[in-house]
């Protein structure tokens, strides 16, 4: 049986990427360009997959590379694994460029949870020291601090924020009011997982630094959705995942640790010779891992860069703001996500006062072949005082206006009682 070498795999992939990059005058609509892009995915025909906020689909070209990499590993395990591992610094360069960091500030991890935990476990805090997190923090950035509180005696305070907040300033003000003389860090989400609200991370970082605090950000919902520049944000660390909006295979994430923070954050899982690595590589030296998955991260980055990030942002904003503006007109629908572009991106959270979240979700699933995420009150975010309950709709660039219309139709039917 013959197997493609890595250069052969990469050459075939480059052709697909060229196709994807071809610009078209009509790329702002569903016609032409976006139809073509949609065909680059393996998603089941008919399925409106609107849950990219949990896990994204891998494009066909990236999936095919991944399969080739796994075969290479089975054919000649160590030598081919070494070839894949040899791409690591190149991938770090691409990832750094993607996030606006220096390569020596980027670690390639498994997911955002690993990054958030690494920061929480890695920073030395004393009993009584206080960390501020937001009300709608994902467990990924809540439980690591709670664990440190239980074990190390720090105090974790959840800062109340409206759902949705009226303005970015309101969020900054909420954090500012919560700071006490014992506060050491603000650790919060850049875009939360519940209502998809964007936080003014740059202003929060400025606030934190003005008061001598660390600012750690959780960007799980941002990377690949809208362009991020961590240097511009000015945060100390930024943890994110690549298998949501970047559509990389499950199992890759990135952690940014600012150069002058690296002395203050211990590595977590690291194998031999970690101490010879003086920069962010010490955080990712995690011993044997699924290298094909890591290698496919490079392909996922190439794929998105080929489409163009400005184009992606325009597309997802077109889809989501259209959806929000239409949904807002439907009786019984309550939008939890602001349509202010400073506060929103591709996620939309809504509920209906006459239909339970699970019924809403199943109606869309069964009748319109639409997959969304449902959320019931209080099960996961006990501190959430606003009782967000309903469904979350993720509209990524491969989704279509026709799919958005299906959701709207479902909402109208349920709203009018016709369902």
């Amino acid at each position, binding site marked *: 049986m013959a197997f493609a070498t890595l250069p052969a795999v990469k050459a075939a992939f480059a052709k697909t990427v060229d196709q994807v990059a071809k610009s078209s005058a009509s790329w702002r609509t569903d016609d032409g360009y976006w139809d073509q892009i949609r065909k680059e995915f393996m998603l089941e025909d008919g399925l409106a997959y609107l849950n990219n906020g949990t*896990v*994204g689909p891998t494009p066909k070209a990236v999936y095919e590379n991944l399969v080739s990499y796994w075969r290479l590993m089975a054919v000649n395990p160590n030598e081919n694994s070494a070839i894949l591992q040899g791409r690591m610094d190149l991938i770090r360069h691409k990832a750094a460029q993607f996030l606006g960091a220096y390569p020596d500030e980027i670690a390639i991890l498994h997911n955002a*949870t690993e990054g958030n935990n690494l920061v929480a476990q890695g920073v030395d805090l004393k009993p009584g020291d206080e960390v501020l997190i937001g009300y709608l923090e994902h467990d990924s950035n809540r439980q690591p601090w709670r664990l440190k509180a239980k074990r190390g005696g720090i105090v974790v305070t959840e800062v109340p924020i409206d759902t949705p907040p009226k303005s970015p300033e309101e969020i900054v003000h909420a954090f500012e009011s919560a700071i006490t003389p014992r506060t050491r860090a603000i650790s919060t989400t850049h875009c939360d997982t519940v209502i998809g609200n964007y936080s003014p991370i740059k202003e929060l970082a400025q606030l934190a630094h003005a008061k001598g605090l660390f600012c750690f950000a959780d960007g799980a919902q941002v990377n690949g959705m809208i362009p991020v520049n961590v240097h511009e944000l000015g945060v100390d660390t930024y943890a994110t995942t690549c298998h949501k909006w970047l559509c990389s295979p499950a199992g890759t994430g990135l952690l940014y640790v600012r150069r002058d923070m690296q002395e203050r954050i211990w590595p977590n899982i690291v194998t*031999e010779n970690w101490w010879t690595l003086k920069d962010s590589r010490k955080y990712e030296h995690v011993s044997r891992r*699924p290298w*094909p998955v890591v290698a496919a991260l490079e392909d996922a980055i190439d794929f998105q860069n080929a489409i163009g990030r400005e184009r992606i942002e325009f597309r997802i904003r077109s889809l989501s703001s259209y959806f929000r503006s239409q949904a807002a007109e439907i009786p019984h629908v309550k939008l939890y996500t602001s349509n202010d572009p400073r506060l929103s991106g591709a996620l939309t959270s809504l509920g209906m006062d006459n239909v339970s979240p699970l019924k809403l979700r199943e109606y869309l699933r069964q009748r319109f072949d639409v997959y969304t*995420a449902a959320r*019931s009150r209080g099960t996961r975010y006990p501190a959430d005082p606003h009782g967000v309950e309903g469904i*979350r709709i993720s509209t990524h660039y491969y989704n279509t206006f026709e799919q958005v219309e299906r959701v709207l139709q479902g909402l109208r039917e349920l709203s009018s009682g016709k369902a």
Partner: protein
Amino acid sequence: MIGHSGVSRRLFLNKIIGSSALTASTLTEVKAAFAKSLQPLGDSNAAHLGGDTDEGYWDKIRKQFLLQEDLAYLNTGTLGPTPRVVVNAMNEYWHLMAVNPNENSLVLQDRQEQIRMKAAAFAHVTPDEIAITRNTTEGTTILTHGLDMKPGDEVLITQYEHNSLRETRHRHAKRFNYVVNEVQFPMPCTNEQIVKAFDAAITPRTRVMHFANPLGGYGCFTPVKELAALAHSKKIFCFVDGAHTPGMVQFNLSDWGIDGFACNSHKWLCGAAGAGLLYVRKDIQDRIWPNIDIAHGDPVGARKYDQLSRRPWPCVAALEDILDFHNAIGPARLEQRTRELGSYLRRNAVEIPKVKIYTPMDPSMSCGSTTLGIDGVPGMRFREYLRQKYDAYVPAGGTHLRISTHFFNTFEQCDRVLKALKELSSGAA
């Protein structure tokens, strides 16, 4: 919470209307095909059982792998090859994820408890004591970071530990101000020497003994039961680095009597890179904190150690397949085969002038891993000679090299190594 319906309606629909050009198999179909392909491995024909010949049964087993034609891959100790059926099943899982990311991811995630049960049975412990980690280093890190240490406490490791364990221990000791002492004994050695060395190194401040079994660089098994008994007689925790254990030999962690054990599945078990196991004895779980946490609530037992959030679920699902693959062949048959190959290599190599074997010849202390060197010949030269002249792959080393002979390797491949040793030893090379 972000809920889901629990059943993949798409999979069901897919079967009825055959919706896509890229029609995916369901997990059930993938599993059924996989089980069928394992059936021939269970051959119990007495004539085929011997580990002492390449013919018949083992020839058939070798063909289960995708390894390059003619390559003598003798480095399972770093990374094992994954059998074709497992690679194919895993790629089907990746396909499922691309076709319907969330629902199919959930279908795979739902196998987790089943995998935990199989892994627990494989290690002879209870499922509540098993966490599904990513590799040995992660497990070792949990055992190291997870136990609260006081300044001045002492931990004993051996001078032969993998640097992953050594450096993790030293780093943790530096951060929390405790002491790591390395127990010394010669190599090769006897069981008695190892026990004596540990006994002599224990002080009233010793809190943990943490060592590999086998010691990976030398393929040397330790008297783990005696060491565990010694540790417990002095109220010391006993943790084992098992990176080279599963898949090479049969093992029973309950019988060993240790407190913690970390291993991978990509070496001797031949699983896809990226899944490992951690055992934490029930009685001490309240003493060992998790390392990575996302759990809302309190996961039962050792599950608190594998709350890792989104991970490459296809790799985790493939862990079940590789356990099934091993069980189909039979761990006893596998160990016998691996042992026959290893001892064949050692007993012939020891006859060659200038060849020194660092792995104990005692069959109770060795199996599929053999570390040896040739006086006056640098390891790198030996390695390149094997690679270029005999198409044999072994890892780099200094004065000596580690040769892994696993069940898919052959006596003919061992002979290639022996020929190279003779040629280099006699100066004919």
